[in-house]
């Protein structure tokens, strides 16, 4: 166990990979990466200075040209999103989504803990370009260190004249307020985040009409951007959109931070080139996770956070590109790959995710509130060895009430099934409901024999382990 948060076990390998472009993680190599001194010494706030030398509309245009895709999960172009604010309606707000809690995902926490000034600079550039007069930086409640680092960085940046009245002696003025969350996964959904910021229970709003860019915080136009998305802006402002689009592919420029966890030799958070890096590279590549632990075989992997349908070995050569992943039956989501080796009890693994989403349902939409809970209860009894054939049918019926019609899944050569492309239809406002069905649907579709065995044998199990205890290598 390492007591201090840093250095991470994977850090050494991370730093050695100097030939990969680093857009957002370039300062992670320094022990004092989070300080204003280090930020200044490494080109910090130069993007802001450049932006302030341009007209706001020119800055917005540059971001649009960079095709910076939102990194929160939906992957919508940030510059286009900014353009949705209605003309002449003031004030406009910026809400930073730092409520990262998608299972398997962490990049925003690292960006806030290790490079808070980069995020602050991104907030300032966005506010200048889109005319946002106040910024609320919503940090997930359970991230104590991020609160401390971001609070200190904000204090230092205020004192240095980067935030507040007449920034760098221009007529640009904006406050950035650090706001604490208090523990609710659903608040990562942008309209729920706004509700929470208004002091309410974090329940999503209906879209339409509540698209935040039109009707957001306090009913005013509001841009909600993810931490990683905003952290890309200093690079784009400093180097221009052409330098950004030179990395990655045309449809997915730049880099992405991907957490690779589970049964791999070197789990870690890697900044990868968007669009071209494949899942095989990520899981087996020497510069990334270096393969499956203990010489075991890959059984399945979750390609884009707990909400994403699962992939198996047949999908390893798919690149990290949104359309390719959708076509193959899943999504890239929040940038999290969770790897399961052949010692994994698949129904028990799916149960951990179903439990998560059932637990995190806010209770607003009936299919999620009731359906998610029933999916959890039924799957729990199947995994415990007390389920029947009828339970498998009930799971599908409950799933159908949340996601009517074809449910996306991956192809499997072993089973002779082809892919159903992403996305699904849904009867709920947000993705929490469908996300409770996704893992059990994937598991039942790709590993039907494990569920059949459980309901046929019906041997009650008192202590269930998702896998055998971790190997000695860890």
């Amino acid at each position, binding site marked *: 166990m390492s007591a201090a948060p840093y250095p991470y076990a994977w850090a050494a390998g991370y730093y050695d990979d100097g030939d990969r472009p680093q857009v957002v993680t370039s300062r992670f190599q320094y022990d004092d990466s989070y300080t204003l001194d280090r930020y200044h010494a490494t080109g910090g706030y130069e993007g802001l200075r450049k932006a302030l030398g341009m007209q706001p509309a020119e800055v917005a245009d540059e971001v649009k040209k960079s095709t910076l895709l939102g990194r929160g999960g939906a992957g919508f172009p940030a510059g286009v999103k900014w353009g949705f604010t209605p003309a002449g309606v003031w004030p406009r707000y910026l809400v930073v989504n730092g409520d990262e809690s998608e299972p398997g995902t962490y990049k925003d926490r690292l960006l806030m803990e290790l490079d808070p000034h980069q995020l602050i600079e991104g907030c300032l550039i966005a506010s200048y370009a889109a005319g946002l007069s106040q910024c609320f930086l919503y940090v997930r409640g359970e991230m104590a260190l991020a609160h401390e680092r971001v609070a200190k960085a904000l204090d230092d940046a205020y004192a240095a004249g980067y935030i507040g009245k007449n920034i760098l002696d221009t007529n640009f003025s904006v406050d950035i307020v650090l706001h604490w969350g208090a523990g609710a996964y659903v608040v990562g959904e942008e309209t729920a985040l706004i509700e929470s*910021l208004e*002091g309410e229970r974090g329940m999503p709003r209906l879209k339409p009409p509540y698209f935040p860019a039109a009707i957001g915080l306090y009913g005013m136009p509001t841009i909600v951007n993810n931490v990683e998305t905003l952290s890309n802006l200093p690079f784009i402002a400093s180097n221009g959109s052409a330098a950004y689009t030179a990395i990655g592919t045309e449809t997915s420029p730049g880099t992405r931070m991907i957490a690779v966890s589970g049964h791999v030799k070197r789990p870690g958070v890697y900044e990868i080139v968007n669009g071209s890096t494949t899942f095989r590279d990520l899981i087996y590549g020497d510069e990334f996770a270096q393969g499956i632990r203990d010489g075991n075989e890959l059984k399945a992997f979750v390609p884009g956070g707990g909400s994403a349908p699962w992939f198996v070995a047949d999908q390893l050569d798919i690149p990290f590109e949104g359309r390719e992943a959708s076509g193959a039956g899943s999504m890239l989501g929040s940038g999290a790959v969770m790897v399961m080796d052949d010692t994994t009890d698949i129904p028990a693994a799916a149960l951990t995710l179903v439990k998560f989403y059932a637990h995190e349902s806010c209770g607003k939409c009936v299919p999620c509130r009731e359906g998610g809970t029933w999916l959890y209860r039924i799957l729990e009894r199947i995994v415990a060895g007390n389920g029947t054939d009828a339970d498998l049918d009930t799971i599908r019926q409950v799933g159908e009430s949340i996601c009517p019609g074809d449910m996306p899944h991956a192809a499997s050569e072993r089973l002779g099934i082809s892919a159903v492309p992403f996305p699904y239809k849904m009867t709920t406002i947000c993705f929490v409901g469908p996300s409770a069905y996704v893992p059990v649907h994937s598991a039942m579709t790709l590993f039907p024999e494990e569920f059949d065995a459980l309901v046929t044998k019906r041997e009650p199990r008192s202590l269930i382990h998702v896998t055998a205890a971790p190997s000695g290598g860890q």
Partner: protein
Amino acid sequence: MSRLTDANVALAREIIARYPKKKSALIPLVHLSQQQNGYVTEDAMRHVAELIDVTPAEVYGTASFYEMFRFEPTGKYLINICGTLSCALMGADQLMHHAEHTLGVKAGSTTPDGLITLQHAECQAACTEAPTLQVNYRHRFRVTAADFDQLVDDLRAGKLDGEIPPHGTLGRNRQHIPADRAVGAQHPDDVTTGPAWIEIAEAAQ
């Protein structure tokens, strides 16, 4: 008992002033009360309601939605063991089993001396360092059974007092916006024109 102290009321007013509408300060102020009292009391919620001009029921209504707010006495140290997929794959259930044995209590309860509360938790955003736990929301990575026992010994001996403040304290430092630099929050109804840098840029075109 347990209304906010004068010092915390001053802090509360500073926090409230940052928001265009007072109710936005609800969650930060309930956190502040939990920092003061170790958990969220009814008196504290009444006091928060007074400060932001809502009813106590509205404060409870919002606060009860969020998992970090606890409405009954809690151990000085809240240990949350993650059980979501990445941690489960690396032995989280075995770790929880061990923790329950070491502490002599089941998950969801507090040790008889009132020092440690043990809980199941969901994803803690440290999935590559599984299995993980948090003590008062401070991470511990790749935790073995022996690590857990050492952690409990250290907590009991007070060895981690500087690093891990008592339950309820989130950050050991807080944001302070200096008055001479602050733009100040305006109620949205009081804003009718665009911000200066936009108006000037548009006028120049």
